């Protein structure tokens, strides 16, 4: 990801006089992340005489929080690059969490890997169904995605609560507990999953024809259609991808807490949207990167954890994240002003 940023800075260097200012602005989210990490480190050193940054527990907590945000934000990044939005991910997550938990509970305490695998597939299938409906609404019925996915937000929420009987579905299963709370070489499994998915989404967006079509769709739908790309199929794939990455978030939730909750994803939705925009995407589409979203998710996670760590009432995190979103938009605008938008 760092080399990615370097490349970006490099290619823009010789374009114009304002290029230095521009590369600073392109890298602002990195600088910002370093800044808040530095802030909390200094705070910890001066107030408690200990370190914030170099403690495994802190890093693990931050990275688990970031991976939750990422699981909703990764597929969403591609959707937003295509100039669409997906609000329903909040409950694609919940639906997947609940469906997985129900199947494992039905199988009894000693459900084996087979059942767990089946439950995972069923959870993903439930999430993918939400994505299919979104794609169909947007691509074939021309429903604006904000409205369409607000509708499926409600439907998926209701469906998750109905199948869960309105309560949290708790399970007792060693396999899922190991999945959700284990680590690989010291790296928490949720972070490993989020990392692998981030790489996959980065590959899709940056290195495949699908990714180019997604960027082009965000900039000029007519251009993509005239180039012979099946835009309807493209939209369906995007919404299914978004639902599936969010669904994986739900599976991890169920595994970590040994319980599936319908509102597993709801508190994270806004953070995920924020991470995508902090990472350089724009509501008008055509821009945004996975590396940006990753940085955005870590910025939010550091703020969340850092504020709690420093003993402030946790509600300040909402204020802080809100401020960062506004800063992100202002940076984006000043970029256009400095470089001079020529369209």
């Amino acid at each position, binding site marked *: 990801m760092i080399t990615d940023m370097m490349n970006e800075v490099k*290619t*823009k260097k*010789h*374009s114009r006089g304002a290029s230095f200012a521009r590369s600073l602005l392109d890298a602002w989210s990195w600088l910002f992340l370093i800044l808040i990490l530095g802030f909390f480190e200094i705070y910890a050193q001066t107030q408690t005489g200990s370190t914030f940054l170099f403690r495994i527990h802190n890093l693990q907590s931050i990275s688990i929080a970031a991976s939750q945000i990422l699981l909703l934000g990764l597929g969403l990044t591609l959707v937003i690059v295509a100039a669409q939005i997906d609000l329903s991910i909040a409950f694609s997550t919940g639906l997947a969490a609940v469906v997985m938990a129900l199947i494992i509970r039905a199988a009894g305490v000693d459900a084996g890997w087979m059942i767990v695998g089946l439950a995972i597939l069923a959870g993903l299938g439930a999430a993918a169904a939400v994505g299919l409906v979104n794609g169909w609404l947007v691509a074939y019925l021309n429903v604006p995605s904000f409205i369409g996915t607000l509708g499926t937000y409600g439907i998926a929420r209701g469906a998750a609560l109905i199948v869960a009987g309105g309560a949290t579905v708790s399970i007792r299963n060693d396999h899922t507990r190991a999945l959700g709370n284990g680590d690989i070489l010291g790296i928490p499994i949720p972070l490993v999953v989020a990392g692998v998915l981030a790489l996959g989404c980065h*590959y899709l967006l*940056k*290195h*495949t*024809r699908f*990714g*180019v*079509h997604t*960027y*082009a769709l*965000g*900039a*000029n739908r*007519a*251009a*993509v259609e*005239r*180039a*012979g*790309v099946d835009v309807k199929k493209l939209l369906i794939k995007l919404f299914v991808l978004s639902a599936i990455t969010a669904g994986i978030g739900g599976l991890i939730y169920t595994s970590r807490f040994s319980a599936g909750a319908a509102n597993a994803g709801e508190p994270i939705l806004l953070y995920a949207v924020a991470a995508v925009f902090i990472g350089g995407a724009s509501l008008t589409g*055509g*821009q945004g990167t996975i590396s940006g979203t990753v940085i955005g998710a870590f910025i939010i996670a550091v703020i969340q954890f850092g504020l709690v760590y420093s003993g402030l009432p946790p509600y300040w995190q909402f204020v802080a994240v809100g401020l960062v979103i506004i800063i992100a938009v202002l940076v984006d605008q000043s970029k256009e002003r400095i470089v001079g938008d*020529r*369209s």
Partner: protein
Amino acid sequence: MTPLLKIDGLKKTFGGNEAVRDVSFEVNPGECVVLAGDNGAGKSTVIKMVSGVYQPTDGKVYKNGTLLTGKSPEAVRSAGIETIYQDLALADNLDPGLNLYLGREVTRRVFGIPFLDRKKMREDAVEVMRNLGIVVPDPAAPVRDMSGGQRQAIAIARAIHWQAEIVIMDEPTAALGVPEQREVMALIERLKSKGVGIILISHNLPDIFAAADRIIVLARGMVAGERRPTETNDEEIVRMMMGATL
């Protein structure tokens, strides 16, 4: 000899509105046919029926004697007929290479996994643009940073690169400044010298006379007349556009 493109009795009705009533003409290799006409005369509708965007209510289009009517826009494109639209159909956020290859991107495999071959696409874009006499300042920059004339050149480069035999342009100079209009007119000459048949829609009389081998004037959905630029003048064309036939 069968013409490169034969348009035979095209007709298009929108609801009760007869946008195009009866339009026939032919295009030969290396020839530029200008479709002239007032606003609403039906010019864009005619070319959309050729490019497959609209299906005609009646009439047929043939390329080298083969029926084109009924084909999808993609099928028409792969039959060698490229249409360059007023709004250019470029993706502003992509570089010239990706725009050149949009919808037909090249990939190369690394350990069996396909990756976009951005380098090849960029190099090809620079090459095709150089053949058009245009230097691409920064092949990695999005086309949003390029001038209107350069952007138009990308659209034309796309046609050349994909070996179009017929290029259709709907008011390609409408949004451009004077020097860029000249660039585009020069590009049209190059396309002609490569044997490409061109249909050019234009309002602009100097452009019409500069580019046309034949001028077809449309008025109210009908062909009001057909002239060679050497055997007519501005006044007559304007009169025909206004609907005073012949």
